[in-house]
């Protein structure tokens, strides 16, 4: 039983890490209907810029601030150069544009900062909490709890931003109906630039957490693959959906790997997450928290 709890809790905490990446996707999709394939590349760019500045002996907070500025810059430029010329184009065109953006960001990041992996420490050790190990024989990492707390704070901040600020309300208006939002004087370009900048900030947070876990290297771009089943399950437009989806995917893939894996040769967790997501699609195509689409015909 102890082992089951350990696997379950470990899975939930791993799921929080997936949610961090999924949040970036949700923000952009919610405001612009664009599935941003480049979110993984943004995570990589943010983490690589931050760690490279740290390695140049920059102060932690200054490095964080400058990276944030870089990510906001990337967001604004993306809106200007990639999205604005494609306004009113079909969603598939915008999606293809973000695929192109992925390769540009990956290439630029490596051109500027090199392709070497870097270590990143945030001062919180990724080791089990001793008292929990000794008393209950359960291994929970301090860093996993820290990442969960950061995710919680991020979701709370985003919820406040969406609900309580003028920009947040404008964002929701754009998400609900582009035409209506334009009619009441909300600038679509302005909103898109803001949302891409916020997604850049989320990418920075995700990059820092994943960077501590695996090192900062090109493979950070693969974190996007972990977010996809979370999005399918939680819904592309829901911030709470990203969190709940992450928890379900994290827990179920770990339990499957540990309890089903040995019977089928192991290594099943990466595709098992998609099995769960596809099963959800069959019964709830819009995801757990996605908006139900009703077409009048």
């Amino acid at each position, binding site marked *: 039983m102890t082992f089951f709890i350990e696997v379950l809790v470990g899975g939930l905490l791993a799921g929080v890490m997936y949610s961090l990446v999924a949040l970036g996707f949700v923000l952009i999709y919610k405001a612009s209907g664009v599935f941003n394939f480049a979110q993984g590349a943004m995570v990589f760019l943010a983490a690589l810029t931050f760690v490279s500045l740290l390695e140049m002996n920059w102060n932690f907070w200054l490095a964080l601030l400058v990276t944030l500025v870089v990510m906001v810059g990337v967001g604004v430029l993306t809106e200007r150069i990639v999205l604005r010329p494609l306004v009113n184009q079909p969603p598939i065109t915008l999606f293809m544009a973000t695929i192109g953006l992925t390769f540009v960001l990956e290439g630029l990041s490596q051109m500027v900062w090199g*392709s070497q*992996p870097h270590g990143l*420490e945030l001062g919180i050790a*990724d*080791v089990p909490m001793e008292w929990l190990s000794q008393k209950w024989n359960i291994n929970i990492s301090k860093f996993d709890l820290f990442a969960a707390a950061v995710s919680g704070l991020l979701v709370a901040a985003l919820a406040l931003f969406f609900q309580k600020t003028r920009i947040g309300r404008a964002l929701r208006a754009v998400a609900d109906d582009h035409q209506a939002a334009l009619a009441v004087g909300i600038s679509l370009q302005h909103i898109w630039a803001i949302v891409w900048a916020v997604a850049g900030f989320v990418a920075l947070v995700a990059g820092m957490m994943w960077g501590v876990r695996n*090192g900062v290297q090109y*493979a950070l771009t*693969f974190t996007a693959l972990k977010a996809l089943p979370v999005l399918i399950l939680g819904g592309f437009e829901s911030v709470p959906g990203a969190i709940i989806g992450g928890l379900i995917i994290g827990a179920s893939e770990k339990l499957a790997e*540990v309890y089903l894996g040995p019977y089928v040769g192991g290594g099943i967790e990466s595709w098992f997450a998609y099995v769960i997501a596809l099963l959800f699609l069959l019964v709830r195509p819009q995801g757990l928290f996605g908006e139900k689409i009703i077409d009048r015909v």
Partner: protein
Amino acid sequence: MKRTTLALACIALAAAGYTGTAAAQAKEQFVPANFYWVGPYAPGGSGIAGGMIDYFKMINNKDGGINGVKFTWEKCETEYNNGKGVECYERSKKHPPTGATLIHPLSTGITYSLIEKGTADKIPIVSIGYGRTSAADGRVFPYVFPLITTYWSQATAMIKFIASKEGGTAKLKGKKIVLVYHDSAYGKEPHAVLKKEAERYGFELTLLAVPHPGNEQQSQWLQIRQIKPNWVILWGWGVMNPTAIKAAAKIGFPRDHMIGVWWSGAEEDVIPAGSAAKGYIAAGFNVSGQNFPVIQDIKKYVYAKNEGEMEDKSRIGSIYYNRGVVFGIVTAEAVRKAQEHFGKGKSMTGEQVQWGLEHLNISAAELKKLGATGFMQPLKTSCYDHEGGGQVKFQQWDGTKWKVITDWITADKALVRPMIEEDAAKYAKEKGITPRDCPKGG
């Protein structure tokens, strides 16, 4: 008349120029640099490419090439992708003056894709420390050279190392060893050998697959926590390595009981894992460090002239860089050997270099001359044996650098060679190949 003379002079000059170019080309030895400088495996590809090219530059600058024949190369980005690897091969195989001398595919997948092509085109496929292990049987695979030490040899050397730490092979009985492997053909390569070793010595072997890319390993390491193994062997690549080391720390598994394959044993694998990597052990067929005369020569004859490949000079002497230098040494010595047989001072064809690769004899005395004593192991190949070395050193990460902790440990060839021959015979049967007649051990 004057006009005719002038025209004839022009023709003569052009002809002289042409023969001059041909002569200049004839004094070149082309080696394709089909590696990867971008993508998830760029740290390995760029380091090895840098080491090999720098070695060629050093040989050109210091000795004027091999008996006056200078090395040339052309870079082609394979992105560790089979399709692109084959494309690069096709592009480079007819390069003047003699076509590709040999190919280092630097990917087990690309190696597999080139086995038949290289054999048909008579271009040796040299896979140092990777590729198809059974290609060590030169009777079936005349143009494939999994040189120095194969994966199977390495796996047996790992068990020997573990036995030495446990107090002898008899003490392995009842011990638990877990193999955490990249869920790919590469990761599955040691399964058969380790299973045989487990049967032979009575240890309990558990195989745990990690799906690509390996950036999430919590479930595997929770299982390891439950199994409580004595040793963990890590057969990873790229991000899987630091993630595994960190995951080991997370469950409190001692890093000094964790042994990585040589593709899990570079600075790039431990630095991202930070302090968690301290004490971690890895196998290697080359060592790190700058204090070898061969590396000093590269610094003197290449970097002092600002001709070096590595932008980040701190990578000179790293595991991957030095591995590239080993690639360079083996290539250069194969060309030298071929020249001794087919004519000094001439550019060698792939077919001639194949002969050179089959007659390599880099003895301890030769290594000393090359400034590589202790840097790599002596190497003696034959028509029968395309592996040549079969030894492994183990090194431990002390938090800042690799420290060699053993001498060369010889693989269990008595176990490995029959397996190689069995697999090669199966391949020969499938492909309708009649094995060459090569004397055993000669």
